């Protein structure tokens, strides 16, 4: 039997029912075993009961996105298989349609399911998770602890999955070992539970593996298995973050909670505030007072920060850095789904004209670099900045060997004042940058105001001063555009002289890169990919240069209108020929993007809207 080098395992069940820990612990075991993982979760804006599912892509090589298809599906409830019928308009019909032919469906044997009429080309294996665990516990003389240890059904399910995926049982069991404390104490029990699940499924499959994951070498140092949201947090800590405010909101909460949990040990001040207006204003106060400050939110919270953005920029507070975890909009929208629909708003997030920086990292490596360096820029150019991230980036896990936290440029706080007896906070200088003092420093007393102000920071309505101050503030954006190298603003992947140039930004990066590889391999299409990573100041020349010589251009965005397309046209005059958009809250899968690109290439449709009609 041939080995499989790219399998997708899926786990579905009710929210709050433990699928997160089950999926994450299984994936971690595989990562430690040497497999490369890309996984993501879909869930409702709900606490307990609604349908949620994890998709885990397991390979011997790095993958940057999910596949549409599943090889093995573990289901803890009926809805995962058959859909939700409790709604007037059911929102999905279960995941069976996603299974590959011959795929394996493992479901909780305690469910009494009627599967008549369902696909017959896949294997259905009811596994009595609870019973198997109970037996293991009883055998170990700990039957009475069943309720307390019930979470171990995760290991039963893991073992069952290992069997279905053709993962070596010992390799999986190994992952339980080597912990400390309670973890270590339970290692053997977990290993037994895994074995129970494994054996049960192997028996059901007549001891024949249906899939067989290609064997890999266990790495010396296990890779990180990490979400974007944690990578952001670590990069911010590395950048010297001193002050973080937040108001709970999905999908930003996890970043905030992680920082909060590490606040005392990292000498970081984290404040849970009363709303996002407070979040940004408090962060502006802290920035003026000399701490690197930040706040993390998503669309609804960002909308409430519009006034604060202008405040920060006009008063040149040097921060805060805002992390905008985009989710399905508009308004409350789809709070737990992903979308790239806040780009345009982030470029002009408030009234009047002011300078700020907007960056959009695309993968874990970008995230670390951008989340870190944007603090340098905020200080250097004394302005606020926005980092565009999204729900997908918040929730996907990926294996990566290390984050490169020690290879980052030094912390640069920009120009600082020296007392001269007549300090002017907003002094006109050639560069447009006025050296800063911070409250508490002798000789550095300054004033600032959200009214137009003079060099000392006092209100003035002088026309002459107004013009100079506007030139000074807006000029800093041009300065930043000149100083920040193109290599931080755009990336061109693939051959210079490609037949087609795909243009995108943010978290579609992984999918686009993977799909272009397939297109080249399977269709012989030589394509390249222009990733736009800095949105403001916009890399006008660099983008115009690439697109100017592109033979054919296709835009890929996860929003309704193709916002980067508009921005490119506004800035360069270049109209990207075709737009592939997806705005149903679910990221492009590899197959969807591949199919859409093929369709675009074979036709001339100006806009192709891709929809994922599954859960």
């Amino acid at each position, binding site marked *: 039997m041939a080995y499989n080098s790219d399998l997708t395992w899926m786990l579905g069940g009710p929210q709050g029912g433990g699928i997160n820990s089950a999926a994450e612990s299984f994936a971690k075991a595989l990562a*430690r075993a040497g497999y490369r993982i890309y996984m993501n979760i879909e869930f409702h804006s709900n606490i307990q009961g609604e349908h949620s599912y994890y998709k885990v892509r397991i390979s011997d090589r790095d993958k940057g996105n999910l596949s549409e298809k599943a090889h093995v599906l573990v289901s803890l409830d009926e809805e995962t298989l058959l859909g939700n019928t409790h709604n007037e308009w059911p929102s999905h019909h279960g995941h069976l349609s996603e299974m590959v032919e011959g795929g394996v469906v493992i479901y909780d044997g305690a469910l009494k399911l009627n599967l008549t009429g369902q696909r017959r080309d896949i294997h259905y294996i009811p596994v009595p998770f609870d019973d198997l665990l109970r037996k293991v516990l009883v055998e170990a003389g700990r039957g009475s602890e069943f309720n307390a240890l019930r979470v171990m059904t995760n290991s039963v399910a893991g073992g069952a999955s290992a069997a279905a995926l053709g993962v070596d049982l010992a390799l999986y069991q190994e992952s339980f070992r080597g912990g400390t404390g309670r973890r270590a104490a339970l290692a053997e029990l977990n290993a037994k539970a895994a074995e129970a699940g494994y054996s049960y499924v192997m028996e059901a499959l007549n001891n024949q593996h249906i899939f067989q994951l290609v064997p890999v070498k266990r790495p010396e*140092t*296990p*890779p*990180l*298995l*990490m979400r974007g949201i944690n990578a952001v947090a*670590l990069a911010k*800590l*590395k950048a*010297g*973050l*001193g*002050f973080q*405010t937040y108001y709970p909101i999905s999908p930003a909460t996890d970043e905030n909670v992680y920082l909060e949990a*590490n*606040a*005392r040990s*990292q*000498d970081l*001040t984290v*404040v849970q*505030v*009363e*709303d996002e*207006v*407070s979040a940004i*204003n*408090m*962060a*502006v*106060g*802290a*920035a*003026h*007072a*000399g*701490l*690197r*400050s930040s706040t993390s939110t998503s669309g609804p919270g960002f909308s409430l920060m519009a006034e*604060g953005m202008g*405040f920060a920029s006009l*008063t040149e507070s040097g921060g805060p850095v805002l992390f905008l975890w985009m989710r399905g909009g508009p308004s409350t929208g789809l709070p737990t789904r992903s979308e790239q629909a806040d780009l345009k708003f982030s470029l002009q997030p408030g009234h009047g004209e002011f300078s700020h920086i907007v960056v959009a990292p695309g993968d874990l490596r970008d995230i670390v670099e951008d989340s870190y360096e944007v603090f340098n820029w905020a200080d250097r150019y004394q302005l606020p900045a926005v980092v565009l991230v999204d729900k997908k980036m918040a929730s996907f896990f990926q294996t990566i060997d290390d*984050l490169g936290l020690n290879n980052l440029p030094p912390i640069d706080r920009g120009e600082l004042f020296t007392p001269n007896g007549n300090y002017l906070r907003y002094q006109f200088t050639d560069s447009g940058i006025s050296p800063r003092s*911070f*409250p*508490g*420093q*002798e*000789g*550095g*007393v*300054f*004033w*600032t*105001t*959200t*009214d137009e102000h003079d060099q000392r920071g*006092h*209100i003035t309505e002088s026309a002459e001063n107004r013009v100079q101050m506007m030139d000074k503030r807006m000029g800093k954006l041009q300065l930043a555009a000149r100083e920040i190298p193109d290599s931080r603003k755009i990336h061109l992947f693939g051959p210079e002289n490609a037949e087609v140039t795909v243009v995108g930004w943010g978290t579609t990066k992984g999918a686009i890169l993977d799909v272009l590889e397939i297109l080249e391999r399977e269709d012989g299409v030589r394509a390249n990919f222009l990733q736009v990573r800095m949105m403001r100041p916009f890399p006008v020349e660099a983008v115009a240069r690439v697109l100017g010589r592109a033979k054919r251009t296709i835009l890929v965005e996860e929003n309704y209108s193709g916002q980067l397309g508009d921005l490119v046209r506004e800035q360069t005059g270049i109209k990207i020929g075709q737009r592939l958009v997806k705005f149903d809250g679910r990221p492009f899968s590899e197959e969807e993007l591949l199919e859409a690109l093929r369709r675009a290439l074979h036709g001339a449709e100006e806009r192709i809207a891709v929809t994922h009609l599954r859960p």
Partner: protein
Amino acid sequence: MVVQTFTAKDYKTAVHNTWCPGCGDFAILNALQAALAEVQVPPHKVAVVSGIGCSGKAPHYVNAYGLHTLHGRAVPVATGVKLANPELTVLAVGGDGDGYGIGAGYFVNAGRRNVDFTYLVFDNEVYGLTKGQGAPTMIKGLRTKGMAEPAIQDNINPLALAISSGYTFVARGYALQPKSLAQLIGQAVRHRGTAFVDILQTCPVYNDLHTKEWFGEQIGGHPRLFQLDDTDYDPMVHDPTNLEEVVAKKVQAIAKSYEWGDRIPLGVFYKIDVPTFEDQLALGDRPPERRNIWNRDLSALENSFR
């Protein structure tokens, strides 16, 4: 006696003042400067943060770090400044519209937090800078010359609101009693925790009801305004762990705060000494450069993801 290194003059600036002639804000400004001199904190260790309004212009007239921020946002900004650098003496100042109207949410939630700063509300019962509309302290049924009709909304009681929100120092002052106001502001600045002072302020341009004359009136031989200090009123919670005393003192203060009209009490209504927000976060007094944040070793955190 302490050596007076700083005098009120040291906290003044030469900036052209654009308040109307006779505005009560001048007196508050003087009292604030006198209070800073009394506390003897060097100007560069003080930050004055304001909202928007006539009152919001105050920082420009104080020789200290001055942040004239957004309408209704003085309190969050002041909180950020103080938490970033706890060694600073921070004052938030602003109008009644600023604080109790657009800023009401921040007013309430700051009470819960108890960060160590002083919040002075210049309470003239009107939106001064936008031409005299009734503010949240305008009493229902009253009408100033700037209003088309008498107020149809009830007024809030700022002191009761403050106590219900958790403030640890709650007081009322009057702009035109410079000495006692300076003394009151001094007490507020010295209080550890958020100290709130509602300052009755005359606005000769728009508030023709509660004028200097009205406040100064004698009624039945008694001045309308009197100091709680001159009575046997005791605002202090002596044992903060005694919940009964805490509640009794809160209720007493709220009852007192409803006295208005012929006899208006001034002074401290409520005071309790409990750990500040910073204390609980163990921030110490360190300015930004003395935090252990500039060169973090994150290998352990990173490795926890392996």
